[in-house]
């Protein structure tokens, strides 16, 4: 085990005075890791910005894996009697595709943005629990790797992403795929739960002075709603996954129909989690484009309180609609009516948001930079997906559409056309802030248009396929039964498959854009405020310093940064720029804070997270290994508990006398 020594103090080198044992060293197995610029620093970091970047990179890699899985599915269906995959592999492919995209791409990518930008947007220097934040990231990464390791250990899960019982029992799914799935999601669930607690406390408790709730940027608002949804939805899926694990590994009877069990129990538990989950996926993207659209329209967000409150309303009503996933299961007329109506009701706050975005653009000075294009892409495509969603609220129509490609079309329009486009808007919008270089606009436009064309070609025809009755998980089609004319299965499946390749070229262009910008140093070095933005995260350097702000600003307005740059003439309502961004920052940073103690690096988060897959493998293969994992959890928790989050004051250098600009004190290790 590598032990990084703390750099000794001068006193210790001289050996003149014996150095007292510091509380942080006395009981720990390791000394605290020191600051360094090597890869080690990324392993032990608790900095929310570094963790945000790591979340982003890992999630993007999983996005590519999930994308390859999707392409294999489309290759299988491009021609009649597809031979690319057999039925079993096809089952694994669509299950792992959906699981990867939902749990290992969209959720952690939203967490990446939330981690990076929420503290910046509320004027904080880090999150409330920095080590728990690091722990969450490592749980997500190890959980995702654990889940995907099933590919090499007998095949992935094959029950579909909602893993309906009793199909998920060992009788129907004898490989270990489902075990990896339940345990892997359990581990990533810990990441979501700890992340939720962390971000909620950060947002509620660590706002800069003067930043009332109704002065928070809308992205922070949407993250707050999302994290509350996670806080209450994750434990429900945790229960469901535990029950399934008990059933598969310990022969419990929860979903065993022969013992009188009710398979609907799984459906209820899953969808009580699963429906808030879809808002967990989309709300962060709503937040991102609510930042992007005002900036590129040169107008404040239309109806800010309405946008914030409609987000909260979605959060509440989102709990009362889960059974619309189960209309075909025979719930009875009362349940169907209630859930049908609540589902129609939830379209209202969503529609309100769409109106607000359009009204923000209305009459604005629009610039169609790439972030704005992606934001408009979201508004348009999400509206289409939302409208097909409303058709699901109508139970008789939904009963026809259940388990057809119409459903696939619907949720890809909201998730890909909506959530993923929002995330891409975020990439292009915040890239200059995160890395100091602007992504190429010209490649970005190609990226956008190929994605729009590819996405609509892939998922648009699925509406037709679904209404024609192509089942959702059909793994092969034959020419003889494909139908004729405009409604020929083969024709639309071919279009859809070609579309998926256009889509992937679009995404490839994003990767090319990153290399073009950074490796070839083509991207323009940006100023701190390249878009003339409105919110606090732009009121600091690009990329931000480790402590985010030299001075925590006093907040007097919604869109504080905008109000420091511009003044409005009360008579004519015309807005004039009075300060440049650099002037605002120079004024703010004239008297920087001293004695900023940032949270200290730690080994414990990664070690604790590492013990969880050990328990997982132990549960599947060897119970002794499980005991080792549990022992590791207990030991690391003790180490964690004894270590203060921020090194005690005596670990930091005393400020050099007379040097008032000693802004940041580096701890000894």
């Amino acid at each position: 085990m590598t032990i990084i020594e703390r750099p000794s103090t001068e006193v210790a080198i001289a050996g003149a005075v014996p150095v007292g044992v510091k509380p942080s060293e006395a009981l720990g197995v390791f000394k605290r890791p020191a600051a360094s610029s090597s890869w080690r620093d990324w392993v032990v970091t608790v900095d929310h910005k570094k963790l945000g970047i790591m979340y982003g990179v890992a999630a993007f890699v999983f996005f590519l894996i999930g994308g390859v899985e999707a392409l294999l599915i489309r290759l299988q269906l491009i021609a009649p009697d597809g031979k690319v995959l057999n039925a079993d592999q096809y089952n694994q492919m669509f299950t792992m595709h959906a699981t990867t995209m939902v749990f290992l791409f969209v959720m952690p990518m939203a967490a990446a943005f939330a981690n990076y930008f929420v503290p910046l947007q509320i004027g904080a220097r880090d999150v409330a629990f920095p080590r728990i934040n690091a722990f969450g990231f490592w749980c997500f990464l190890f959980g995702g790797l654990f889940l995907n390791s099933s590919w090499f250990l007998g095949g992935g899960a094959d029950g579909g992403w909602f893993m309906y019982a009793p199909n998920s029992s060992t009788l129907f799914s004898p490989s270990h795929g489902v075990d990896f799935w339940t345990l892997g999601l359990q581990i990533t669930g810990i990441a979501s739960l700890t992340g939720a607690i962390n971000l909620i406390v950060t947002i509620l408790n660590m706002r800069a002075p003067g930043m009332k709730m109704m002065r928070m940027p809308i992205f922070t608002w949407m993250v707050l709603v999302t994290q509350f949804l996670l806080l209450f939805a994750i434990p429900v899926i945790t229960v469901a996954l535990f029950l399934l694990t008990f059933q598969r590994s310990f022969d419990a009877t929860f979903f065993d129909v022969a013992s009188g069990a009710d398979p609907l129990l799984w459906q209820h538990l899953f969808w009580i989690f699963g429906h808030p989950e879809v808002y967990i996926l989309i709300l962060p993207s709503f937040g991102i484009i609510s930042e992007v659209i005002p900036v590129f329209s040169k107008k404040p967000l239309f109806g800010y309180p309405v946008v914030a409150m409609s987000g909260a309303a979605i959060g509440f009503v989102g709990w009362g609609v889960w059974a619309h996933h189960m209309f075909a299961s025979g719930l009875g007329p009362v349940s169907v009516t209630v859930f049908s109506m609540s589902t129609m009701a939830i379209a209202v706050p969503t529609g309100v948001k769409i109106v607000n975005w359009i009204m923000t653009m209305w009459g604005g000075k629009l610039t169609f930079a790439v972030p704005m294009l992606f934001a408009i892409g979201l508004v348009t495509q999400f509206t289409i997906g939302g409208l097909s969603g409303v058709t699901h609220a109508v139970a008789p129509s939904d009963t026809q559409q259940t388990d057809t490609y119409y459903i696939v079309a619907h949720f890809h329009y909201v998730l890909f056309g909506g959530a993923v486009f929002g995330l891409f808007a975020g990439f292009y919008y915040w890239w200059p802030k995160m890395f100091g270089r602007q992504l190429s606009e010209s490649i970005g436009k190609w990226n956008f248009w190929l994605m729009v064309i590819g996405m609509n070609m892939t998922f648009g025809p699925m509406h037709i396929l679904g209404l024609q009755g192509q089942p959702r998980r059909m793994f092969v089609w034959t020419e003889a039964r494909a139908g004729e004319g405009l409604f020929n299965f083969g024709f639309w499946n071919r279009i859809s498959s070609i579309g998926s390749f256009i889509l992937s070229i679009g995404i490839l262009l994003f990767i090319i854009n990153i290399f073009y910008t950074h490796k070839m140093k083509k991207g323009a070095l940006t100023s701190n405020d390249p878009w003339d933005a409105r919110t606090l995260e732009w009121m600091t350097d690009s990329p931000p310093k480790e402590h985010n702000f030299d001075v925590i600003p006093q907040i007097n307005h919604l869109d504080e940064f905008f109000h420091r740059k511009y003044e409005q003439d009360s008579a004519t309502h015309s807005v004039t720029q009075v300060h440049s961004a650099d002037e605002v920052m120079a004024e703010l940073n004239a008297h920087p804070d001293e004695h900023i103690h940032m949270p200290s690096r730690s080994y414990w988060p990664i070690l604790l997270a590492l013990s969880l897959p050990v328990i997982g493998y132990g549960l599947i293969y060897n119970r002794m290994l499980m005991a080792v994992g549990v022992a590791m959890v207990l030991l690391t928790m003790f180490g964690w508990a004894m270590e203060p989050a921020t090194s005690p004051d005596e670990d930091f250098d005393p400020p050099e006398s007379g040097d008032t600009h000693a802004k940041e004190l580096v701890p000894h290790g």
Partner: protein
Amino acid sequence: MAESAIAHDHGVSHGAHASSTGLSNNKMGMWMFLGSECLLFGGLISTYMLYRGRVSSGPQPNNIFDIPFTSVSSFILLMSSLTMVLAVSSAQRKDDRNINLWLTITALLGATFVGGQVYEFTAFYREGLGFTTSLFGSSFYALTGFHGVHVSVGIIMLIALVGMNRNNRIPGDKAEVVELIGLYWHFVDIIWIIIFTLVYLIPS
């Protein structure tokens, strides 16, 4: 504002500007966690309630529960909430010796409860109710077992707290750390009141 928002992790030692809401980060975090736990037990209790009336083979709830025995162990668990309050109160008065005393008693009462649960499980198993016997068996053991694990984790935290307190190794504000573990402990007790009522007292 020199000490920055980050310093909150130390607890209240940094003065009045600690947080936007006035509640410390740690305490708010614990409340959020307990809120989440409600849904965890909600799911398990729902599972039990769904299956309690089902006709199934093996022993039935009515002829297996020993209500007087479980009432006594429930009483012991509830008394541990009282001793926990006394521990928190000593911590707020900075009375170190009594902190350790009351924490230890709380842990012992908790351990008695868990011991009672182990005895009860063994007795039920001898009477033919295994984890895999029936829906009742699976859902009963899952629900009460999860609760037992929560009590056990609480006991580990209490013992660790006593050990750390004796060596003066509790980071941050001691009274708050004791209070946080107290919050968890009371939560687990309240959950038991619900479980005891729904599972044992209301006949199926």
